[in-house]
């Protein structure tokens, strides 16, 4: 299968903002196909305004060119919408090792009002304590929030559930 080779190449492309993750760990590649000899790699955005999306596109094209593929297309689809549930087990493990707490729950049925009512106890990626506190609902990138561990006192980032 010539698609298999494409998946192998994609597995080597890092996320530009969280370089321990590959784009496959992140779950943004929806489909690989060919039009003649040109690979068509369909991706979906994490957040609507995520500035990494253009990098994904150019990084994918560059990797394909390097491996001898020409005319690569990287169309974007919005449906079905990306969810953190698509981050692979491997991806979640790598996030934690890197010091970012992976999303704790499924993204389904989140309440719309009053976030404090349904906050989960995020596990500290350093000492595994559940005694942690939300510091800021927003963080350094669209996909992260800021937490603090009440036991080891370290601040850490949490990959928001979407």
């Amino acid at each position, binding site marked *: 299968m010539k698609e298999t080779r494409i998946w192998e190449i994609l597995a080597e492309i890092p996320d530009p903002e969280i370089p321990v993750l590959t784009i496959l760990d992140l779950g943004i590649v929806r489909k690989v196909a060919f039009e003649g000899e040109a690979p068509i790699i369909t991706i979906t*955005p994490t957040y*609507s*305004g995520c*500035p990494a999306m253009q990098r994904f596109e150019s990084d994918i094209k560059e990797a394909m060119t390097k491996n001898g593929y020409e005319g690569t297309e990287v169309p974007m689809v919005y449906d079905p*919408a990306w969810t953190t549930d698509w981050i692979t087990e491997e991806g979640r493990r790598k996030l934690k090792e890197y010091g970012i707490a992976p999303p704790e729950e499924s993204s389904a049925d989140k309440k719309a009002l*009053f976030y404090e009512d349904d906050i989960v106890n995020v596990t500290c990626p350093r000492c595994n304590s559940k005694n942690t506190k939300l510091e800021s*609902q*927003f963080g350094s990138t669209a996909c992260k929030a800021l937490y603090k561990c009440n036991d080891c006192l370290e601040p850490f980032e949490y990959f928001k559930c979407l």
Partner: protein
Amino acid sequence: MKKDLYNFAIRMGDTSWILSHRLCELCSFGPFLEEDLAMTNVGLDHIGQAEEWLNYACELSDEDVDADFLAYRRKEKEYRNVQLVEYPNDDFAYVITRQFYLDVYNYLLYTKLTQSKDATFAAIAQKSLKEVKYHLRHSSNWMVRLGDGTEESHERVQNAVDDLWFYTGDLFVMPESEQNLAKEGIIPNLADLEADWEKMVLEVFEKAGINKPSYEVLASGSFDGQHTEYLGFMLCEMQYLPNKYQDAKW
């Protein structure tokens, strides 16, 4: 029908676009670091949503335009954003109240739009709804914190609630073009959303100890290109660079 779809895509795109500009004006001017991050992150989501709607508007347009052209090169009367998002960042209470009114509206509207008979409308709605929910949790929480906070925070948020109430009527007005879309099951009937919007807003007011404004909503007309005085000043600044250097690229 294509023209009606175009009009609505422009309306949604412009609303997100103008609000994103207001929010990004707060970059490095937020009241404290966490809120600076919050405002710019919410602004970034709105830039993304605006791009999705305006890209679709370009597909629907008979003219050869791109999203950047629509965002930066139109005249004031060609913008179709709701008037609420033009209101300046006078005070943090106004920033939060403006966001809260629109978040509730977007939450209800996008929830309905996920069922749209237009596949692109439904896809954009599905994507945006996740982000809007996160925004609403942030703004609703702040409404309670300010309303139920100190005497001063209460007074300031009540002033914002009263002043901005004026502009909320504009959210539910349906011109002919949108009535056509509603008949086809492409968008919900906006007038029907109003009751749900008020119910949700009042739920938060109650928890926050905020009083419902006693006067009727008045402002409308953004669907026809009628804007507040604030928009012109904002566009002057926003469009300055693209107008001066027409081929400027990042």
